[in-house]
């Protein structure tokens, strides 16, 4: 598909000017903003979507949505927060689609073989995969709230802003997500040993 671009022009120093150019669809400005915030967005997307979805694809979808939403951006939030909000919505939207299409329920996921030869690297990957499965089972909203607050360490009000939910709803989601996750993890032989081993 073709695109129309302007050749590079002197870039004004101020972020306000950069944002204004982004609002007008200036490709150079958009490229500059996206490059600056892409690493953070990738982290957010990974936290929210886990391994169910391809982060590169999610990043692309997020940026496309951002380009189309930029004209409506009024600067009431920082660009980074605004982009992260779009990223969270993108990831949650796709997770909902994946959940509808999922054919294998979590409970039917294969259990690890107890007599498999232990290899620290493989074990680590397996534990991570199990954790992602349990996080996915929380549902997109609870997963996002829990991961962003507990794992990523974002304050609750920021998590609420990113997910578009109220503060009370976010607190509630984090609370119930934590309870449910811990319940699942305690029943999972691959993950329950994690905590048991540390306590001894």
């Amino acid at each position, binding site marked *: *598909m*073709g*695109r*129309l*671009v*302007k*050749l*590079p022009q002197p870039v004004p120093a101020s972020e306000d000017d950069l944002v*204004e150019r982004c*609002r*007008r*669809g200036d*490709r150079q400005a*958009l490229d500059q903003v996206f*490059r600056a915030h*892409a690493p953070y967005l*990738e*982290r957010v997307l*990974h*936290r929210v979507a886990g391994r169910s979805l391809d*982060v*590169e694809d999610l*990043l*692309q*979808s*997020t*940026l*496309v*949505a*951002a*380009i*189309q939403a930029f*004209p*409506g951006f*009024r*600067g*009431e939030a920082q660009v980074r927060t605004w982009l992260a909000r*779009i990223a969270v*919505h993108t990831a949650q*939207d*796709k997770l909902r689609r994946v959940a509808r299409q999922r054919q294998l329920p979590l409970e039917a996921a294969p259990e690890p073989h107890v007599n498999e030869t232990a290899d620290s690297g493989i074990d680590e990957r397996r534990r*991570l995969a199990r*954790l*992602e499965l349990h996080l996915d089972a929380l549902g997109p909203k609870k997963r996002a709230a829990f*991961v962003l*607050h*507990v*794992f*990523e*360490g974002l304050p609750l009000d920021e998590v609420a802003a990113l997910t*578009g939910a109220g503060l009370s709803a976010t607190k509630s989601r*984090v*609370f119930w997500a*934590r309870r449910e*996750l*811990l319940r699942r*993890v305690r029943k999972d032989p691959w993950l329950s040993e*994690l*905590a048991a081993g540390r*306590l001894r």
Partner: protein
Amino acid sequence: MKPTCLQAESLLQRRAAGLSAAESLRVEAHLAGCTACRETASMLSELRALHLTGQSQLDPGSRQRAIQAALDEGCASVPVADREAERRVAVAPAGWRSPRLGVVMTLAACVALGGTWLLARREPERADRVLSGELIVGGAARTDGASLPPSAAFEATRESRVTLGHATVQLSGGTRVGWSAADHALALSEGTVLVDVDATKHQPFDVITPRFRVHVLGTLFRVTLDSVEVLRGRVRVEGAPGTPPQVLDATQHPRFDLPPQPKPPEPGAPHGTDADASRSHGSAPAREGRGAGEGEHSAEQALQVKTLGVARERPARVQAPQPSAAAAPNATRWPRGRVSPSSDEKDTPRVGPEREGLAGRNVRSSRGDAAASLRGEGDEAAAVSALADARAQLAAGRVAEARRGLAGLRAVKLSQAQRAEMASLEAECHVVSGNYAAAQRAFLAVSERFPRLSAAETALFAAARIAAEHGPASEARALLTRYLARHPKGSFVAEATKRLRALSESGSP
């Protein structure tokens, strides 16, 4: 006092974000005596560490790919508010991973298909040459003032400007092109070109990439005594009694009509860059205007028709078909009443359906005057389309067209939200026209007439900002204060507070 388990739970969750010294002490004290919480804390900590081991960053190549693909898709049609800039079109290959397309092959294709593009003289009117920068032509470098062969492939080692036929072309560093003077065709195999075509030469100009081509056209328009209809390109209609000059565009606003007035036909006027419209009876046959607008002529004219700049087709027509419509971002810097047709929704970005952008924002302008089709119909979707059309016109700086579209909506039954949007757009017309006093009054009227809609907040802030930038400081202070009082949690609180502070510090009366 030791925290209870619930309190400790809350503190434990926040551990990753960092606790104060006092909070840390409380948590540690509780954990020392509570096995359950100690286990929970440990497990959360381990799970967090495990989750952080998962790859969360793309490699630079994947990231770059995602950004470029998003820009290719999202910037598919980028309207420019600057009329002068509209004459400049830069074309770059989209998502092209293998730039080593044979330039010679492309040139051969250009030559083979050249017959279909020939509309004018074969010989260029001026020698092709390098204006600035450096090109590699046939292995040799050519710099300022050097001539270029009529058919050649060359590469720009740095940003360069050249004349090719009747166009001035700017090439970014690393751009590789092939040029055929006989066909007025430029084949782009790598990089970016910015092409400024001289419309007075009445000649076509093509830019070809492996995936599409851009064809700069002449202007085709039909003129009668009472109307002008543009079939291709753009013209400006001036001198109509009681009507300001108007721009007609083949895709968005192709027609102009006056009430019928019988007048004797006049003999033709001399040709030139400007062409005089005919006033013959009945419909005149369409005439090819080769950039100079050769319509039929008459002596005394109530209508004058001028072709404008580079007559070209809308960018959308040369793009490959896409499943999603491109948005028409609004270039105006004033806060908008809404970003979706539903005015009561918050102005937060939303995603879905996939890759189609915000709901309701991808309504492209339909052909011609959408509002005219609404009279007497009250069709919700058509009203939405007409409002979007007016918004797009305004974004492109076409105030008259936007006003006309909005005027057509007055006879249509609209929802309150749509009326608020219409009123906001009318206020913005004043802004774009530079009539700030009228704009401020109009925005204030919106805020008073629709107090419960989000448009009211936006309009009040817009009025305050106009006052801050163009009016007396006292009025700005009053409006900003009113905004903050009415919308303490509004979208513009931060900016309003900042502006109010600045006014106070400046000490302006």
